[in-house]
């Protein structure tokens, strides 16, 4: 095994995902400890142009696998080329985003190279010759610090929005073209289409600002006031389990233990009481604001700012107020 770190860069709609730069930042931190190099791999359509976006990030090589067969995501197609690059380069660490793709691909490739993987990490450091990662367990009710034991290629998936993104650091990465090496017949499951759901708003797992509604919203159409504030701030709309179970909101935007875990810089909880399973999904947000009629709602204990009031009065008022500021 070498001392190197391999970063799996993710591309969506032709753009390199922001988390890729966060991964490069984490990779630099690790190689400061190991003394190795950082390489990257980009797979899929637009891999070539995405590589240019990080060509001056101090990477040694960027492997580009852009064959047409990889235009659509398939676990098997991507895992084939990814695992071969891992086997050839023998890095000590492989970093991925804890995204839909990273969470699907990571364990499969880890299994193929017989390594170890830590999912959904929020922080990492290098000490005593290995990487120690911090990750939530019990859906964010606790954290553990965990480290590899023995000589295993260690895969780490890192949640978006947790680590600072790296910037250019000079140098020109060598671009290595790599054929997919798979046939269409050998791929037994493949994505055929992407269906957008969120109405143009950012996804809650990637959003910097989330406005969330709870049971007190009382109806699906009342989400309009939440949407207005979210759209004004370029944020995403979230919902508590109570609101989803009552049919007021789609499950895709549920925040909490059986929904998504989110980490925005601003989370505004409107009419959400703050059940344990909800707090588990949003408590790492940088700034939390609670708007609730009940002054004893547990959400206030976890918030930075609170207003005791009716969300139907407060939220439109807040939207109006912010409009005059921006």
């Amino acid at each position: 095994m070498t001392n190197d770190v391999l970063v799996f860069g993710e591309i969506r709609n032709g753009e390199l995902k922001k988390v890729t730069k966060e991964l490069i930042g984490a990779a630099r931190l690790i190689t400061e400890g190991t003394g190795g190099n950082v390489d990257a791999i980009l797979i899929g359509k637009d891999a070539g142009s995405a590589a240019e976006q990080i060509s001056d990030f101090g990477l040694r090589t960027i492997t580009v696998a852009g064959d047409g067969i990889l235009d659509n995501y398939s676990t098997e197609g991507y895992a084939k080329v990814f695992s071969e690059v891992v086997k050839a380069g023998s890095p000590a660490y492989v970093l991925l985003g804890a995204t839909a793709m990273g969470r699907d691909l990571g364990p499969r490739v880890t299994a193929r190279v017989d390594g170890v993987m830590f999912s959904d990490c929020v922080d990492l450091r290098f000490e005593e010759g290995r990487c120690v990662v911090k990750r939530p367990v019990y859906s964010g009710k606790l954290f553990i610090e965990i480290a590899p034991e023995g000589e295993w290629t260690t895969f780490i998936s890192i949640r978006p929005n947790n680590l600072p993104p790296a910037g250019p650091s000079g140098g020109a990465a060598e671009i290595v073209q790599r054929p997919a090496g798979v046939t269409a017949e050998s791929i037994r499951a493949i994505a055929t289409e992407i269906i957008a759901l969120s109405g143009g708003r950012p996804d809650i797992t990637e959003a910097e600002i989330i406005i969330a509604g709870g049971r007190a919203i009382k109806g699906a159409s009342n989400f309009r006031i939440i949407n207005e504030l979210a759209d004004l701030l370029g944020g995403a709309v979230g919902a508590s389990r109570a609101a989803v179970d009552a049919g007021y909101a789609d499950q895709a935007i549920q925040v909490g233990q059986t929904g998504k875990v989110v980490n925005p810089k601003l989370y505004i909880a409107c009419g959400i009481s703050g059940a344990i399973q909800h707090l588990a999904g949003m408590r790492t947000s940088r700034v939390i604001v609670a708007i609730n009629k009940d002054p004893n709602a547990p959400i206030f204990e976890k918030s930075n700012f609170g207003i005791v009031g009716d969300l139907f009065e407060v939220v439109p008022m807040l939207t109006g107020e912010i409009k005059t500021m921006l």
Partner: protein
Amino acid sequence: MKILVLLKRVPDTEARILINQEGTGINEQGVKFVINTYDEYGIEQGLRIREQVGGDSKVTVVCMGPGEATELIRTALAMGADDAVHICDPALGKPDPFTSAIILAKAITDEGFDIIFCGKQAIDDDMAQVQSILAEMLDIPQVNVVAVFELSDDGTKATVRRRIEGGDEKVEARLPAIFSCEKGLNEPRYASLPGIMKAKKKEIRTKTLADLGFGEVPGGTRSRVLKWLPLPKGAECRMVEAEEMKDAVAELARLLREEAKVI
């Protein structure tokens, strides 16, 4: 069609989870354990596929867990599953994803299958790895975080939608394959009274590691938990108040912009 459903015993979502005194895990005292929420969608989907395909289709639950998991396996049987395999061995402790997948792969291969359902992740360690490692070991395709599932009429492939950032990815998968389920895939049924009565007579085949041909816990030690950490205490909540609500809201907006600098 032989349908397998994987089931894990985990703490209830509403449970307060605290670190034990030794700092080596959680304090399980007083914690209610349930079927992993996402696995319930897998059970329901398995039952629906059995109903759709008919014939001699069968739903078998596969659970790795302590003796106490039996009661949850019975719940799955009461929902309508036909029988179960319970992998139970005191040597197991809390197996890591590789150990789990190696053992499950053996049990599943012994059992035979056309399709496997499980939850997208277990809400205890939240690794979300076992199903994909398992797929690799069984050399079958996987589709994770499935929110819509449709089996073709001839039962040879599935067209599904899996949740990704900001939307769904439509995936075509040839069977046999493993599908990990997302909330919203279906509405899991409750066990009926007749179902509960019938479940008592259904077979649970308990297997130890030795029964599955393992001399010791497989997979090797790959990681070590160094520390369990409680959540950091949040900042004190600053309540924004004023005579008039309008003034309180204006102050909140100012705080968010000028002090917190988040808008």
